[in-house]
């Protein structure tokens, strides 16, 4: 199709869809209204299960199978990137040469922030059921925090701290733990992903039943998966064509 025809089709389509969306938006409850029936049921349900972070309760307790599916998507996509960026026979890793050394201040801040970020990430994962946060948010923090080593130092230091097989297994273990907790629900109460542990004291770290455990499983999976994902893209940067002998 020529660009001109594409423009006409696109213009007509955009105008049509824009009109459709506008007509729907005009009939929706106005922005900021207090009409939220699902919320009115979800908040008491969360409190009944001892979870102070209602979003965490909805994610892991009330709509747990959505989160299981989402974990599977994350796992599948990281695997997909592993498959699609697998090194081929004609390629070999090239050394990281000629790059500028980082500034002293970058080094200092990097090494100072690394333990802080890791601890904050762990804290966000662990307290996901009482404060805003949770497995996903904390996991991504952990994954990217590790890469401060690359920002503040050299790629080789990162490679030494990042044994890829460990993190690939870690990701699989995280998703498997989530599913296993679901099956444990069947074993204990006959219901998949049931919250079968005691609900504890509202607002304390030992509360909300299985939600903190699920948060940890997700944190491990997402953290490991994020490291694996970024690792694949890094590997592509530092690959060279064996015949050409220089980077792509």
């Amino acid at each position, binding site marked *: 199709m020529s660009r001109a025809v594409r423009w006409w089709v696109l213009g007509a389509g955009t105008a049509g869809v824009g009109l459709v969306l506008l007509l729907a938006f005009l009939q929706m409850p106005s922005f900021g209204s207090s009409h939220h029936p699902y919320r009115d049921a979800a908040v008491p349900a969360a409190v009944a299960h001892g979870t102070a972070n209602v979003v965490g309760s*909805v994610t892991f307790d009330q709509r747990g199978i959505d989160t299981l599916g989402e974990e599977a998507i994350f796992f599948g996509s990281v695997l997909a990137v592993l498959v*699609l960026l697998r090194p081929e026979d004609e390629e070999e890793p090239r050394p990281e040469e000629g790059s500028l050394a980082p500034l002293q201040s970058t080094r200092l801040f990097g090494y100072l922030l690394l333990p802080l970020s890791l601890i904050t990430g762990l804290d966000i994962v662990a307290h996901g059921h009482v404060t805003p946060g949770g497995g996903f948010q904390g996991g991504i923090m952990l994954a990217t925090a590790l890469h401060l080593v690359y920002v503040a130092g050299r790629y080789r230091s990162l490679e030494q701290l990042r044994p890829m097989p460990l993190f690939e297994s870690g990701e699989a273990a995280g998703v498997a733990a989530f599913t296993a907790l679901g099956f444990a629900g069947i074993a204990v109460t006959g219901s998949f992903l049931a919250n079968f542990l005691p609900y504890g004291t*509202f607002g304390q770290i030992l509360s909300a039943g299985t939600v903190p455990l699920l948060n940890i499983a997700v944190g491990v999976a997402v953290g490991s998966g994020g490291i694996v994902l970024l690792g694949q893209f890094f590997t592509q940067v530092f690959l060279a064509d064996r015949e050409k002998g220089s980077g792509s």
Partner: protein
Amino acid sequence: MSVYAYVVAGALLLLGAIGIARSRDLVHAVVCLSISQSGTYVLLLAIGYQDGAPAPVFGSTSAPTTRVVDPVVQALTLTDIVVSATVTALLLALSIQIQKRHGTVDPDELSALEG
């Protein structure tokens, strides 16, 4: 305006789609796709908002109440973000491979699938 937030969401969705259609670079197209997705986040979160209501997290100073922002759409948006991030990574990996195979990331020049 009570509809403005939704219009922003719809605009993002459409602008992303237009961006993909006009794109001359696959990486640009992938980023436009994630712009479209951020339109859906804005829509979901705008639907859940309530004027003057606090966040749906209860601590020692806030007693449980249903007068909070909708937590369900926040959970949905979280799922949506994870899906988007991973699909974006997948598409970028595909773009890298296309660059390697075809030497170009311009959709106009990729013509192996005609007819």
